[in-house]
């Protein structure tokens, strides 16, 4: 089976994000960028399925500037076979290209590459939209298995266990399907230096949104970006007794 894995380069999840002084976005200068953590989990799952012989080819896709190639090389060092970079200069600090346009781009690539399924992160940790996988499934008329914590590939179908509000839900989906990953699906491997060297030789095709006939004109305008309200630092209490007293008599919450 062939699998398509869309990935995104985002501000590293350990970075404290700073809002720009003019409230137009967030600061990207000298900020560490990495592969979106949920996408790393998607790449890992695809590689695991290849290691057990269920998947034969892993194609990673990214939409972004030249620099997006960095995370694609990381994915190839982990074990992806080749990459397709859709180049765009869309502003990155607010999440880059909008989810609907990303989904349309991916649909065009699915039409071209004919994968048996797509596996991708449930959300990117920049704009936190959590939309693209579901939108792609809709545009393709495919089934969707979102927030996956377990994926079992069968014959013409895939069983996906999903992290939902009430517990763990399992659905059976007809293939081809779109799967989006949650945190506990797997633990992505670390890449080794020799693999990074090898990854540099793997094929990385560059195309443009125009090649796929997709319009990146935004539907949403960002009016402003601001800091969230700051909580004023509280007090330290010396004992459990003092804590109970404060909660009863000052905060009046118990």
């Amino acid at each position: 089976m062939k699998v398509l894995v869309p990935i995104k380069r985002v501000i590293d999840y350990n970075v404290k994000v700073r809002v720009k002084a003019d409230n137009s976005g967030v600061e990207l200068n000298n900020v560490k960028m990495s592969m979106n953590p949920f996408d790393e989990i998607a790449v890992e799952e695809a590689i695991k399925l290849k290691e057990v012989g269920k998947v034969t080819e892993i194609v990673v896709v990214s939409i972004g500037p030249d620099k997006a190639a960095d995370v694609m090389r990381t994915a190839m060092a982990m074990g992806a076979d080749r990459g397709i970079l859709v180049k765009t200069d869309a502003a990155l600090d607010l999440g880059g290209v909008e989810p609907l346009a990303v989904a349309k781009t991916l649909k065009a690539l699915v039409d071209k590459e004919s994968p048996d399924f797509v596996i991708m992160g449930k959300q990117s940790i920049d704009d936190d939209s959590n939309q693209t996988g579901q939108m792609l499934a809709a545009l393709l008329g495919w089934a969707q298995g979102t927030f996956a914590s377990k994926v079992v590939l069968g014959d013409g179908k895939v069983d996906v266990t999903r992290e939902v509000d009430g517990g763990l839900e399992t659905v059976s989906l007809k293939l081809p399907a779109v799967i989006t990953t949650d945190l506990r699906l797997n633990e992505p491997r670390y890449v080794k230096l020799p693999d990074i060297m090898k990854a540099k030789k793997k094929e990385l095709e560059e195309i443009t949104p125009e090649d796929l006939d997709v319009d990146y004109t935004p539907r949403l305008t960002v009016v402003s970006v601001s800091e969230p309200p700051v909580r004023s630092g509280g007090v330290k209490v010396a004992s459990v007794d003092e804590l109970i007293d404060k909660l009863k008599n000052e905060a009046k919450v118990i």
Partner: protein
Amino acid sequence: MPVLVIAQHNNSTINPATLNTVTAARKIDADVHVLVAGSDNQAAADAAAKIHGVKKVIKVDAPELEKRLAENHAPVIAANADGYSHILAPATTFGKNVMPRVAALLDTQQISDIIDVIDGDTFKRPIYGGQAIAEVKSSDSQKVITVRPTAFDAVDADGGSAEASDGAASGDAGLSSFVGLEASESDRPDLSSAKIVVSGGRGFGSKENFAMIEALADKLGAAIGASRAAVDSGYVPNDYQVGQTGKVVAPELYIAVGISGAIQHLAGMKDSKVIVAINKDEEAPIFSIADYGLVADLFDAVPELTDKL
């Protein structure tokens, strides 16, 4: 133009997050209708008709809608969305799963997880795990929106008397089927809507030790939450996780025990009214947002607190 709220329900009762979503909808337009798509769902439709401020309830009753399969629900929502300027659902795992599929069918760019309504086109939503707030303006003629329940008060579940009507079903897409739900059994209040939440982190060290928090939660009538570290370590099931990618909670009182306070966890609880932190590391970031901090060994403090309450 009227706005449409997609009810979250289990065919017999309405999930409370729907009530918060109605509040957000009423900030856009007073003419709020509710779609209740399910199977054998008359009871849920009746309950929706009683929600304060709802003018009309559209019931769609079809066997393929019994479970919340996005492949079957999205076409029904899209087909019944004609004539509505806005279609809203709670940003729960139900809404997050189905609404983007609806948005794509309607060719509209969804606005996720709104925390404020500025006007019919303009909304506020958190980005970067709540580290920044973006005000976005939509140019789409029809808007698909998910609503962060904790950011809006719930309307009264009673007092309304909405007009009842039936909507069209779309048939079984034949793409997916429900296999099973491994539900987390609990007699405690629902984490998302509890007045008091007691959360534990890695500091407990083991699943056995984590049980200590249950006694405290029982004493307070609280729901139990957890940090990602506690969930990953297997102390509690996944749906206990509070944070950027887990549940967002905003109770009257949030007690964080043995939680250091990673940005991702704070994103899920920093809108709580009163925050208490108990941690033995006085440098732990959780103290910077806690109203009351107690630097103490949780193995001493938690039993003492449970005893004295």
